[in-house]
């Protein structure tokens, strides 16, 4: 039973990070109706920027965090400006493919910078373990999880109370209607890419803190995409729910099935779950069901 609790707890902590990645993808989809593959790379970029400022330039933690967020935000803005904006009005599928092109481009640069090695930072969050409900939990991950929940809270407040958040929701509803009530859809698109890039950067740093920066880190973005699909592409609460669910499922299934089949369950659990969910609920757990017309 303790084993089970331990697995659930670890899964929950990991799931928070998946949820964050998924949230960044959901943010973009909600407003622009583009599914982004590029956010995995933004994650990697954020982690690299943080590592560079913290380890290479020996800046203090707070400065490093601000600079890394700033760099990633600029990157998100640049992607929107150079790649996404020329494709406004084109089929959405082309926009999806251009995020894929951005993914490849940044992947190449990521490889060039890392050169097949891995980078890690010295622990910058408090370490140690505390016992929660009979299961020991690493404090580092607890702190990351806390940050992740705070971010979700922040997003909820942003969408509920601020002008730009409301503008984003209006844009998500209908681009032309939003334009006609005086919202600049273009600047909303820019803002949403900046915001989601920053969310991705936080997720990237938190993930890199657990598993180091190495080549497959951006590919966790693809896992984030599956989480987003499981939760529903246009639902931020769905992303949180699906992320936590998936984290728990991965760890529990890996804990119990790995000895039986010889490892690796953790890598596929997400995808098996996705295939099942898509067959049962094609629009995800909390996604909006669209009724299509010709």
């Amino acid at each position, binding site marked *: 039973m303790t084993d089970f609790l331990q697995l659930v707890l670890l899964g929950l902590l990991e799931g928070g990070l998946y949820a964050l990645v998924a949230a960044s993808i959901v943010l973009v989809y909600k407003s622009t109706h583009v*599914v982004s593959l590029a956010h995995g790379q933004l994650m990697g970029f954020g982690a690299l920027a943080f590592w560079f400022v913290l380890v290479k330039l020996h800046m203090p933690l707070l400065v490093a965090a601000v600079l890394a967020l700033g760099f990633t935000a600029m990157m998100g803005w640049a992607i929107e400006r150079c*790649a996404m904006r*020329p*494709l406004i009005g*084109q089929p*959405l*599928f*082309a926009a*999806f*493919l*251009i995020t*894929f*092109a*951005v*993914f*490849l*481009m*940044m*992947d*190449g*640069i*990521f*490889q*060039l910078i890392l*050169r*097949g090695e891995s980078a890690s930072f010295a622990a910058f969050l408090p370490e140690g373990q505390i016992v929660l409900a009979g299961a020991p939990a690493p404090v580092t991950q607890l702190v990351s999880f806390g940050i992740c929940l705070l971010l979700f809270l922040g997003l909820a407040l942003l969408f509920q109370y601020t002008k730009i958040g409301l503008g984003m929701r209006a844009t998500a509803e209908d681009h032309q209607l939003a334009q006609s009530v005086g919202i600049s859809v273009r600047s909303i698109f820019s803002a949403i890419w900046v915001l989601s890039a920053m969310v991705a950067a936080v997720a990237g740093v938190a993930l890199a803190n657990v598993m180091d920066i190495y080549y497959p880190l951006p*590919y966790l973005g*693809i896992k984030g*995409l*599956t989480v987003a*699909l499981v939760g529903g*592409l246009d639902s931020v609460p769905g992303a949180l729910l699906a992320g936590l669910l998936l984290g728990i499922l991965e760890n529990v299934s890996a804990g119990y099935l790995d000895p039986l*089949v*010889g*490892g*690796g369950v953790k*890598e*596929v659990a*997400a*995808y*098996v779950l*996705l*295939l099942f969910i*898509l*067959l049962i609920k*094609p629009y995800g757990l909390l996604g909006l069901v669209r009724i*299509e*017309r*010709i």
Partner: protein
Amino acid sequence: MWRPSGTFDETYRQDMAIVRTPLRWALVILALGLFFLTPVFGSYYIVSFLNLLAITIIAVMGLQIVTGYCGQVSFGQAAFMAVGGYASAILTGKMGFSFWVALPVAGIITGLYGLLGGAPSMRIKGFYLAVATIAIHFVTMWLLLHLSITGRSHGLIVEPPQIGSFVFDTDERMFYIIMPVMLILTYGARNLVRTRVGRAFVAIRDNDLAAQVMGINCFYYKMLAFFISCFYAGVAGCLWGHLTMVCHPEQFTLLHALWYIGMVIVGGMGSIPGVFFGVILIRGLDELVLIASPVFAEWFPWLGSAPAAGLGMTAFGVVLAVFLIWEPRGLAHRWEVLKASLRLYPFAH
């Protein structure tokens, strides 16, 4: 669309012909004849590069049918190739079938496996289906790495094909298997897209609801598209396995599938010649980067000693972005424009 000047089609057969005039027949036969002499004159490097191109063309041709014609994006092509390769390796190595039986059977097995990939298309489409095929890729790879019949992480050793005592164990010899297969499959694809089935695919791509209203059984045709596409992938994987004489999950990564999608885009969605353009351009670019990267490494020491992989990816991404923004219809469109202007050469209209 554009007819050669002075050539008139009087029957439906003539109108639908792939090779239109006797002159073109002569040119096609001459070109093919010369092409098949390549291993005699060309170096090993050229022949092995052509083999790689041809296998990629087969795989991308399948992807073109399901993505370019039927509009169902599949990121699973590499996994399907792996299924074909492993199926053939098991059929020839463990069950004692000859290569000539294993080649089509591996294609059919992969096609049936591909129906699994197409099954979600019953309820989902677009991005959802694209991500579902990524999921299928990872599940397939996991199975290949964990089943005992596929040799787990060791992969499988594949025997080269054989006729009597003649063994196709070099690139030059495999050339004479790969190229005819590629040509037959190209003809098959070209023929398919001018039939009722091909038109149904295009209708589904353009608007699947409208297609359904017109009486096209969407699910059936989507599954058919996946079956055909995976048949191509299976044949390509089988040839690839027999060429390299080994089957290993490392040969069929998600990255390969991403490259194939990129080739379809660069070549032009919904065009069979586009497959050739896309594959040749991207593979050529990759080869160029491979040749140029030591030079770059010398000029720019901060790139590290082996920048080929990273540079190749970056270049590929840039090319893809450029095509999506400025030439979304791909090289095939340029090719059509060029042909039309050459045909009317001295006169503008």
